[in-house]
């Protein structure tokens, strides 16, 4: 569905990503685990086209090369990003946010149907369509952000730390929603700090450290790997290098 190869991002001299290669299959949930500053957000932003990558990269979405497209065409090609900090339009209402989600040509014709599906997924939004997005709780704003991304009828949905700042109950709801989104045929690429819950719904995972992919595997294997457990699942001070070594 989505294939990324040789993706390098640099801010000045600092290399945030170094020749990252990864792939996501149809209806697959893939999680990227890594510490703060490992380059997870840069990865998603570079794929979505809002952060420039160095030459040599290749990003293919459903057979179409999107490496050189500006961000608004990447959305048209079928990729939607829910950015860090949600990126919703705070001054606008929930309805306006969702309607803007269907701004791309690819979803305009079926806006009504998709809206129905999004509201079925997040019934709470249906009650609050007229509310200004800024005045909602963090969890509700995250629903608006994900709902807005789904309105573009994406083939691949990218999410940057969607559980950040949410209550445990909200987190549970969120991950359940992601599982249902996958069931509807959308592939999900997820960047998360919450390793336990994300590995529980994911099919596969990648480990990223200082801009490099240092390991990958099936989610079930990652869950059981002692080094991963130590580094990401609430063990003592994480030793990522140890976690990665078992995959090389």
């Amino acid at each position, binding site marked *: 569905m989505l294939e990324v190869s040789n993706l390098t991002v640099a801010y000045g001299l600092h290399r945030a990503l170094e020749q990252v290669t990864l792939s996501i299959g149809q209806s697959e949930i893939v999680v990227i685990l890594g510490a703060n500053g490992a380059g997870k957000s840069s990865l998603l932003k570079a794929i*979505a086209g809002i952060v420039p990558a160095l030459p040599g990269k290749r990003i293919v979405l459903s057979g179409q090369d999107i490496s050189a497209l*500006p*961000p608004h065409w990447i959305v048209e090609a079928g990729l939607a990003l829910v*950015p860090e900090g949600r990126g919703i*339009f*705070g001054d606008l209402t929930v309805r306006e946010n969702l309607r803007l*989600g269907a*701004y791309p040509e690819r979803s305009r014709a079926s806006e009504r149907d998709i809206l129905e599906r999004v509201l079925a997924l997040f019934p709470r939004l249906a009650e609050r369509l007229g509310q200004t997005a800024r005045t909602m709780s963090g969890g509700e704003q995250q629903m608006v952000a994900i709902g807005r991304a789904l309105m*573009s009828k994406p083939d691949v949905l990218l999410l940057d730390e969607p559980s950040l700042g949410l209550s445990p109950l909200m987190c549970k709801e969120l991950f359940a929603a992601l599982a249902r989104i996958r069931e509807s045929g959308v592939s999900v690429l997820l960047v998360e700090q919450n390793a336990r819950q994300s590995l529980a719904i994911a099919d596969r995972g990648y480990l990223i450290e200082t801009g490099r992919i240092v390991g990958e595997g099936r989610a079930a294997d990652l869950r059981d790997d002692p080094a991963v457990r130590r580094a990401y699942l609430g063990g003592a001070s994480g030793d990522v290098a140890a976690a990665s070594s078992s995959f090389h």
Partner: protein
Amino acid sequence: MLIVDIILGGLILGGMYALVAMGLTLQYGVARIMNLAYGEVLIAAAFASYLLFTAFALSPLVGMILVLPAGFAASWLIYRVLLVPLVRRAKTRDALEVDSILATFGLLFVVQGIAFVLFGGQYYSYSYLSVPITIAGSTIAVNRLIAFGFAVALSLILYAFLMRTRTGTAIRAVAVDPTAASLVAIDVRKVAGLAFALGGAMCAAGGVLVSMFLTFNAAMGVVFTMKALIVVIMGGVGNLLGALVAGLLLGLVETVVARLVDPGLTLVATFTLFLTVLLVRPTGLFGRTGR
């Protein structure tokens, strides 16, 4: 009746301010271009109306059918040719603001220079529907009432366009968060250009309406830029309703001072009001903190 005089006069003046400021707030709030040549576009539209009226006996209201699209097209061209290179190289929105101030400051003198060559420095006016009518004991020229009516109608149309249409919502989305706008497939540069052009059309409309009852000359543009800027900042940058309220308020205050105190003190009143608003609410009457 003095009170009716003041209210009518204030509303008419304020309506012009509001209309002109709405155009500037579109350019500044959405395209992030601080257009110092804004008033020059307004004066150009006023001269266009004058020419159409004196040379072709075309009513300024009919002339609007030509002048508004011309203002739209000219502003769009200015954005594409002069400003897009700045947008491209600007690393941040703040950098773009500084660059655009310098570029449009230069543009101001270009447009003003052309106007001086064509029309010289003298004042111009023409007489269109300057028939007095009496409303509640107050006498007023019909052209002022018509200008006010058009200003209200155009403001409402613009407001409805921004609130009700897909393109209008996209314009507001770019004003709130351009990066997020690109994530819903909005071509930010295209929409910014559209907003800039739309602002230019509103500005041209202001020029046409003002020319119906004010005398003007080639050097007057800066007065309108300054007034519009004050109204935009008082109302909160990018806020249409704020521009409307602040425009009407400024018109009323200026008229009250001119009629009850001393016409020479209107500028003092303008800046007193401006500074008071900024002291009490630094982000404007309807602005939010921390944008």
